[in-house]
């Protein structure tokens, strides 16, 4: 007989084991789906998860996709840890990209070492500005940040749309909905000849290190932890709640904005309609899969990045729609939430009792 027993204490090993279990279950379920669709499950999974990263180019692509995911997820974990539910990172990414893209376009015929830092800074500021809207509305007007931040995503995408077909569209671009190419000085340098991986990865790594330090070594991190457990306690301890809400949203917005900069000044090199395959939303999954821990987020972003690549390979070699990638992302989150049950309960196998 199987009996489910409540754990006295959520075990630390289980805490890190459940994400691995979730990934394993996702693979099993994915294989099953491929089987039902009429593919050989192992072969399909190989195309999905191994072929895309089997060579140098593939590995560079993996890091390329993981970079924005990691950066955004780090930013989001500042919010999530302190009980602030920012789910509009996609909008902050877009707005950051708009601001930094606008600045890059200002310099479009110029070269100079100073251009790139200004462009990057502009992106961070853009993301912060956009994240400050739900934060200020929440602190001063008691609005729900989930709704506000989510709705602002669509606003930012429409602004981007308007700009690339209207005022910012390339005058020599035959009415394609895109801007001019940025000048080389406004682009992030590539790390290796022939590969697309760019210097943006250092931004992500810096974010990992800084966030680890803030979370575990600073008063701010401690206050975030307390607020995350109980807002009543935070109030009783006398923490300045409003200031903290705004601060974590700004940090989170800056990270998303930087991820936007990385995309448009990296592999894309201009603004157009689709600058992000929903990195801002997928990063929510990454943040939770990584347990809001900086190191966990590195691994989680790599795992989730594979689903993007795998979806493309699977489309090319097996004619499976690339949206399978989103199915896999959904399954990871689904199984993660389900296996979190094990954090609080354990399954006991006991002999039949007479």
């Amino acid at each position, binding site marked *: 007989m199987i009996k489910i027993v409540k754990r006295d204490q959520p075990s630390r090993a289980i805490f890190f084991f459940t994400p691995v279990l979730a990934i394993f279950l996702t693979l099993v379920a994915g294989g099953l789906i491929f089987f039902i669709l009429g593919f050989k499950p192992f072969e399909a999974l190989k195309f999905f998860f191994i072929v895309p990263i089997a060579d140098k180019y593939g590995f560079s692509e993996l890091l390329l996709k993981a970079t924005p995911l990691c950066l955004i997820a780090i930013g989001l974990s500042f919010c999530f840890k302190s009980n602030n539910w920012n789910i509009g990172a996609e909008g902050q990414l877009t707005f950051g990209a708009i601001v930094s893209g606008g600045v890059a376009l200002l310099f479009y015929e110029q070269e100079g070492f100073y251009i790139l830092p200004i462009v990057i800074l502009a992106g961070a500021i853009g993301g912060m500005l956009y994240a400050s809207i739900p934060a200020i509305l929440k602190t001063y007007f008691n609005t729900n940040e989930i709704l506000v931040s989510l709705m602002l995503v669509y606003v930012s995408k429409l602004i981007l749309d308007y700009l690339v077909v209207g005022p910012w569209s390339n005058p020599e671009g035959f009415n394609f909905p895109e801007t001019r190419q940025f000048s080389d000085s406004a682009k992030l340098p590539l790390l290796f000849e022939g590969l697309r991986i760019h210097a943006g990865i250092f931004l992500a790594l810096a974010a990992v290190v800084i966030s680890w330090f803030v979370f575990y070594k600073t*008063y701010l991190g401690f206050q975030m932890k*307390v607020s995350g457990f*109980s807002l*009543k*306690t935070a109030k*009783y*301890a*006398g*923490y300045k709640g409003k200031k903290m809400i705004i601060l974590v949203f700004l940090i989170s917005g800056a990270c998303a904005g930087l991820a936007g900069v990385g995309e448009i000044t990296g592999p894309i090199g201009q603004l157009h309609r689709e600058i992000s395959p929903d990195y801002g939303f997928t990063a929510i999954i990454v943040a939770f899969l990584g347990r809001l821990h900086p190191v966990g987020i590195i691994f989680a972003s790599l795992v989730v990045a594979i689903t993007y690549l795998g979806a493309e390979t699977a489309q090319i070699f097996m004619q499976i729609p690339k949206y399978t990638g989103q199915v896999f992302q959904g399954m990871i989150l689904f199984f993660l939430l389900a296996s979190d049950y094990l954090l609080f309960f354990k399954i006991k196998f006991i002999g039949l009792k007479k």
Partner: protein
Amino acid sequence: MNTNLKISNVTKIYPGCVANDNVSLEFNSGKIYALLGENGAGKSTLVKILSGVIIPDEGKIYLNENNLKLNSPLDAKKNDIGMVFQHFNLFETLSVFENLIIDSDEQRESVREKIDAIMKKYNFSIDLDIPVLNLSAGQKQKVEIIRCLIRSPKVLIMDEPTSVLTEQETSELFLSLKKFSEEGILIIYITHKLKEVMQLCDEVAVMRRGKLVSVSEIKNENIESLANKMVGQNLKTIKKKKAKTSSDQLIKITNLNFTSEDPFETNLTDINFSVNRGECLGIAGISGNGQSELFQVLSGEIISEKNSIEFNNNYIGDLSPQERREYLMAFSPEDRLEQAAIPQMKIFENVALNNFKSSNFFNNGLINENKIKEHSKKIISDFNVNTDNIELKSQFLSGGNLQKLIIGRELITSPDLLICFNPTWGLDVGAINYIHETLIKINEQNKSIILISTDTDELLKLSDKISVIHKGKLSKIMNSEEVTSEKLGILMGGAN
């Protein structure tokens, strides 16, 4: 007709705790039975088993020799077991009558006649057509009782019924209960208040740590003997020495008002009082009369007008809790698990919640873990917290140990004023004694206390002055020697 209720070998085990350990009891109608025990002794579990809320792991229940299968509260009702819980299960916005017929399938008119008859018989006067939210706690309880009586129960179980009642309401309740008993209803009365047991009951069953310790007749017991059975040890009695009368004023509250946007909170009107050094001011009242709001206003969780609070010759009404701590105030809130401490965090992390600047827990925005740990060790040994591991998560501390940790954390800064709200709520007698001794010691060191409590005995024991809060207003401040619990009861009920 005689009713016989038998509990036979009932056991209920929760992870990490045996709530009921092979309990057997027998009750007969015509008597009022007390089920006595401390918090966590297993009374509530036993009662929930009788009312079908909890299904026991083992054991049987017989009513007049019939084995009852109580799988839901409905089964209990069908078997004529009525239950009045400590927390009322009424719809506040529905009328009294609507609340009474909500689980009845009879005709409205016939139920109404029945209710009228019951009210007449027991001398209850409640307007059936006003919403329940307009009733006092005592009236609400009568509604709950009427709801049971409609079904003419054989057994009526009352779970800690007096915790929200005034002294007067309590004696009314006792009269009714005695009447019910004379009419043949078997009454089981759950409580941890010894005085009430002596006053009301005929027989008493004492539980301790899930086990039935004794069953005896009240005439063979007295308060001391029952207390010792309940706690399982001989208690020393603590007495407070009369404080030296000091006229050195420490805190003064002037014309303090608070109007809440939340309809479930109580507004505070025109609060005025002062506390001298070395004094303990007790604030009595039935819970929900503005105590929580008053605590928050004093702690700075709710900001008020700058001049309304004068502390040590500074106006501090507009300061945050953290800033008030710097002026040497300390706070122990009512809710240990959701406010005063975070159970999922380690002991030393909980100590760091009191960020008093000169404790140097945080320097330049960085955590100074060594300092925090050093302090935590000191608190644990100074305040007798029963563990030596400061890395332990606080959820593994018992309520008493957690409260000692909290009080210790607040006192480590040697504040001039400690404000505590129900500091011994839900604790076992040993821990209560310890906390009381600690509070007395604070006064002896010429430091002051504001003690907001719903426990009248505690207030009478510890306070030098007492005031009563009712609907957000304070009564005049009285010297505690001039006050009796009866007098407090009258004031708590809102009379002058």
